[in-house]
């Protein structure tokens, strides 16, 4: 630290009377100077802080938010979710007609917006098979209600005209060049058909840029209309469309009807399986701890969180393996780094500087270069195996499997992270006076006692700093395990990358990432407490 402290300088600059040179009280003047100094420092830091916030902290924060976010279910199936609230999974029965009616309406919109496959894959993480269920239903859902559409058009051909529907539902005084708008009153008259039609109008307008005045409504709107007319409520006042309502209501009583649950069961038996509905109900809330439970091998059930079946438990094992391998790497780094750092710290400066290059060169060499070197060296037909066969230690048909397993990852990563251990150790050992060891020996200590009781305790801070740094870096490694780790030597990072780019289960990836980040931050905090972030050294 610099011995020049500006605080002292202010004092010396303004010593003398209790008034500063400009006649203000010294105390106020000092405070002002201090405040200005703080502001100037902050102004210099601010651009970078803002930059880091926007390019780094906020993106990570948003990513973390994804681990609890679950809006897709309630976004895609809003009315179904609402209708499901009254359903009790304990009965072991599929939900009633109301839920299936809501599902028809929601699914129709979702299919047009192509959201149903996304919802399907989201729910598939929780129950296998839902993805194909939604895809299959997406192809057939527009047939539901066709029987009503046919009967309405048979009754009165006007029902098949887009214009007639638009007049019935649309606001007054709409000109063709104005965008279509619903009349507010029809929502009272047609409690079901109006929202269904509104959804239809909004969807085709936003998805295909179509005008509802030119398109015949979906079959699901006819279904909704039938439901309205069947009940034929009596109104005291006369809102819009009441005459249509009273005209057709008596005529629908002898319509051929359908059973919605049966229709869905026809598409796929799974729709009458209470387990499917239970999954939808469980994951209906906008926020969920489901991803986190998933990432520690538990799952949500109606009775609370439970362990997943034994054969599906992978993440805790993976976390455990990541920790163990990081510890193994840290351990081997200490074993290999300590003697080297000791040698460097005790050699004459000139020799030490030359040897230091051997430590710094790997540090400066591209990670990809070092990883490819290990990939080349460790292969079954690689240099190390060739050498061992050549010397005769290993038989040619029994070459060592050094790559695509945990061994490969540990060897390669020890090599890659070793400089991060040697450099902090070296800088700590440089500060230990060699006279201490000599003094201990001259007082009668053996070499071992002198080292273990005198030197080693003083080098512990270096071991701590190096170990935490190596451990932090190791636990989040991705590239090297991906290339030399195969399936047995991968870390949790590789699983996160897999969920981001292959399985597209982003929520689970975010939850796993949050846990990993939390782990790393704990160690970062420890590092800050023990070593201090300011003392991170790069390259000696």
């Amino acid at each position, binding site marked *: 630290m*610099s*011995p*020049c*402290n*500006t605080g002292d*300088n202010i004092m010396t600059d303004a010593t003398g009377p209790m008034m500063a040179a400009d006649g203000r009280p010294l105390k106020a003047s000092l405070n002002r100077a*201090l405040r200005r*100094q703080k502001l100037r*420092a902050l102004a*210099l*830091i601010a*651009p970078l*802080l803002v*930059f*880091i916030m926007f*390019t*780094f902290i906020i*993106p*990570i924060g*948003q*990513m973390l938010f994804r681990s609890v976010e679950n809006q897709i279910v309630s976004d895609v199936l809003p009315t179904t979710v609402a209708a499901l609230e009254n359903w009790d999974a304990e009965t072991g029965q599929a939900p009633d007609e109301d839920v299936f009616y809501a599902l028809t309406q929601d699914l129709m919109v979702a299919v047009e917006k192509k959201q149903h496959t996304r919802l399907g894959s989201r729910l598939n993480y929780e129950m296998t098979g839902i993805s194909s269920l939604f895809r299959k239903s997406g192809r057939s859902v527009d047939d539901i209600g066709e029987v009503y559409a046919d009967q309405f058009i048979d009754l009165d051909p006007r029902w098949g005209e887009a214009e007639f529907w638009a007049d019935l539902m649309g606001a007054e005084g709409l000109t063709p060049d104005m965008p279509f708008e619903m009349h507010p009153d029809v929502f009272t008259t047609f409690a079901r058909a109006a929202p269904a039609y509104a959804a239809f109008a909004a969807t085709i307008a936003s998805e295909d840029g179509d005008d509802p005045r030119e398109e015949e409504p979906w079959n699901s709107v006819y279904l909704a209309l039938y439901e309205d007319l069947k009940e034929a409520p009596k109104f005291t006042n006369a809102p819009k469309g009441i005459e249509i309502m009273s005209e057709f209501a008596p005529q629908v009583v002898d319509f051929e009807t359908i059973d919605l649950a049966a229709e869905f069961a026809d598409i796929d038996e799974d729709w009458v399986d209470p387990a499917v509905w239970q999954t939808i109900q469980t994951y209906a809330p906008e926020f969920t701890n489901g991803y986190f439970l998933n990432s520690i091998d538990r799952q949500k059930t109606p009775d609370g969180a439970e362990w997943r079946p034994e054969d599906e438990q992978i993440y805790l094992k993976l976390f455990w393996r990541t920790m163990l391998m990081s510890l193994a790497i840290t351990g081997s780094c200490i074993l*290999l780094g300590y*003697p*080297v750092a000791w*040698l460097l710290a005790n050699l004459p400066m000139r020799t030490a500087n030359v040897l230091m*290059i051997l430590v710094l060169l790997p540090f*400066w*060499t591209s990670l*990809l*270069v070092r990883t*490819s070197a*290990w*990939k*080349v060296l460790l*292969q079954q*037909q*690689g*240099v190390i195996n*060739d050498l061992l066969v050549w*010397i005769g230690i290993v038989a040619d048909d029994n070459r060592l499997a050094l790559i695509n397993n945990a061994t490969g990852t540990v060897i390669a990563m020890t090599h890659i992270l070793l400089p991060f251990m040697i450099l902090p150790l070296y800088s700590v050992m440089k500060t230990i006076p060699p006279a201490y060891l000599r003094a201990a020996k001259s007082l009668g200590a053996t*070499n071992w006692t002198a080292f273990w009781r005198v030197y080693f305790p003083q080098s512990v801070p270096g071991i701590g700093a190096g170990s935490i740094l190596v451990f*932090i870096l190791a636990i*989040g490694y*991705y*590239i090297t395990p991906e*290339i030399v780790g195969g399936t047995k030597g991968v870390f949790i990072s590789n699983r*996160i990358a897999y969920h*981001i*780019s292959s399985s597209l289960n982003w929520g689970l*990836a*975010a939850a796993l*990432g949050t846990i*990993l980040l939390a782990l*790393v931050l704990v160690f970062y905090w420890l590092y*800050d407490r023990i070593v201090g*972030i300011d003392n*991170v*050294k*790069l*390259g000696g």
Partner: protein
Amino acid sequence: MTVALTAAEVAAKKDNLWGFTIPITALFGAILGILAGQAAGLGILTGLVAGLVMGAVIAFVLCRFLPRRTGRWAAIIGFAVLGFIFGQLGGALAGAICGAVLGWCAYWLHSGDYRAGVPPYATTRQVLWHNSFLFICGFIFFFLIAPIIIIIPLSFNAQDFFTFTPEMLALKAEGFSTKHYEDFFTNQDWLRPMRNSLIIAPFATVISVTLGTLAAIGLSQSHVPFRQTIMAILISPMIVPLIISATGMFFFYSKMGLWMEDTLGISKSLSGYIKVILAHAALGIPFVIITVTATLVGFDKSLTRAAANMGANPVTTFFKVQMPLILPGVISGGLFAFITSFDEVVVVLFVGAAAQKTLPWQMFTGLREQISPTILAVATILVIVSILLLTTVELLRRRSERLRGMSPG
């Protein structure tokens, strides 16, 4: 000096040629003999016996009749000739190495140099431990450097193999070729990523160096509120696992890219570069902060006050007084930021599109999917680049230390 002398005296006093030097050199010879016998296909036993005998003979002849320098060259040449008879050029090289090791070993043991590092009163066990320790350290240095060095000869392989072919081991010219380098310099699959890397890294470096240096100067003032927290935030890109940064940036930057294309009307390719550059700049910042802060610790603030005293305004003071003094730190910070961006693959993999494919990305795909020997040529080039960078940084560090030595810190 005294130690070396005494050690030599001790060795001279009891001429331990028969009891010490010859058996141990013979042991080394036996080990080398086993290896050589195995390699030449003579069998372990033959190699062992031959090595034992040769080690003993070498030790006796060299220590008794030849001065050190001549003796060592004689051993090297003798063994090289022997190797050449058995295995031509490759054999000669191996022989020369064996000769050098045995010759050095014989003199090292006989002259008592092996005790040079320990006090004269050290017991045999202590001497043994001391030398084993040096050997262990040697192996660790070998472990550190060998993987990097070994890919250099491998990259000149004439075959598409990743190991030394018999032609290469025999040092025959047809075993080597520069065809992987030709592939690198003619293949668009490699040249385009190279160009992308050379576009992205400098821009990212400029951003991180500018903002990082300013902030480091701010942080090194004596009164900074929340200094610890700010520092923790600014260093965090180095600590947070890359995969997490990459994931976060993946979501955020794809939205930002859409916004840039739709609202600002920037072309898709340009917005792709901007995204990667911003991401890499963020990753490089901790390195700039750390190196520049370290330089500023030794900066004498009375120099800026002196400048101000003589009438320089803060901007002049910064550029004329402070900047030249901290420049070595700033440049090494910049080199760190450059190598971070130039070497980065996880973030660009997630944030970039195929048009922004960088060199490490191409290497990564190459290693994962169709491993092609051109990777070794690229790796060799990158090793040379890193040697150059390392040299620059070392020189700058020394210069910085000299500069700091001049001004009372």
